[in-house]
């Protein structure tokens, strides 16, 4: 099996076109690298189950519930104090802090899940070794694709036909 190829395009439409062509040929597109999100690519590569939102919801509600429980425990059970004749369990005003805290924890969880799902931080990556890759964050759109054949020449040619400016091999 040959090393996966990294094809460089100067616009996302060309990349999508090339990817579809190659996929039709039975090659396996591994990933695409673009300076901004391209909806077609996102659809193509998106993980089937994106866990960010469920995780955030879970953590957020959990944290809110925990915070509410803490307030209740602190002011009803652990150290009940008469503040201005207010009920110990002043549930109306106990709703505010859990909300703020829940949102905060949801955000932190989301960030953690984002990093987790994306495998970040990943400071050292084989792609970084490819000289042209530095333009993937600027003005080039890259497709990483694995050839179905042992010899990747066919794929390379097909990519170049589809408008790839440069095609390089990625070595792990």
């Amino acid at each position, binding site marked *: 099996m040959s090393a996966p190829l990294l094809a460089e395009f100067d616009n996302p439409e060309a990349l999508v076109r090339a990817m579809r062509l190659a996929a039709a040929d039975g090659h396996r597109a591994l990933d695409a690298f673009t300076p901004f999100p391209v909806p077609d690519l996102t659809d193509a590569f998106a993980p089937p189950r994106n866990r960010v939102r469920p995780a955030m919801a879970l953590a957020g509600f959990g944290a809110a519930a925990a915070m509410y429980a803490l307030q209740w425990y602190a002011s009803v059970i652990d150290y009940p*104090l008469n503040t201005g004749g207010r009920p110990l369990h002043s549930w109306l005003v106990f709703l505010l802090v859990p909300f703020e805290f829940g949102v905060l924890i949801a955000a932190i969880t989301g960030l953690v899940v984002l990093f987790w799902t994306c495998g970040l*931080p990943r*400071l050292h990556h084989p792609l970084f070794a490819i000289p042209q890759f530095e333009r993937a964050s600027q003005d080039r759109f890259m497709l990483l694709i694995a050839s179905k054949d042992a010899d990747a020449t066919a794929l390379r040619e097909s990519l170049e036909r589809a408008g790839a400016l440069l095609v390089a091999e990625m070595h792990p």
Partner: protein
Amino acid sequence: MVQIFHPGADTVARVVLASIGAAPVLAVGLAYTLWRSPYATAQDVTVEQPVPFSHEHHVGGLGIDCRYCHTSVEKAAFAGIPPTETCMSCHSQEWTNAPMLAPVRQSLAEGRPLTWNRVHNLPAYVYFNHAVHVAKGVGCSTCHGPVQTMKLMRPSAPLTMGWCLDCHRDPAPSLRPHDAVFDMTWKPPADQAVIGARFAEKRHIKSPERLSECSICHR
């Protein structure tokens, strides 16, 4: 483009990120652990004194009652530190020439008081009252520990607010019969829970809510 980082950098980055998350939690935990440790509370830390007065000898050995020296413990907030003349009431006959007692004799001769170092340092702003605790049947050893075994005095409790509250929220285990208050060797009987609760009721000890109100100790 060339690789900027070595492969190992990934691990470093992950550890750094994890530490950023963990640091605040660990710091709070560490601070709390430290703050309640004897390191901060001075619990069980012996205090040097100008005269090495031994409670072990006087209480444990000679069996002198607490109130012989701490005369106002039943009457006032402050238990009282004996005046020099109290020491000299015996030591004018006993150990009259002991070099250890030179500061005491000097104090009496010059009319200059002895300066003791405080052992039980309550948190600031607390108005503790010995008389009430004694009257309600809280024994000396409950807070001061086995004084009769201490060569030099040391606090045997952390004296933190949380420690005070432990008892104020549940006084029954610490309540004794009145005649056992000054008994340094008192051990709670097996049915202390029942007896303590009965004492609490009989002695009109306030509810845990009342006893943990701020104004009980602070003003």
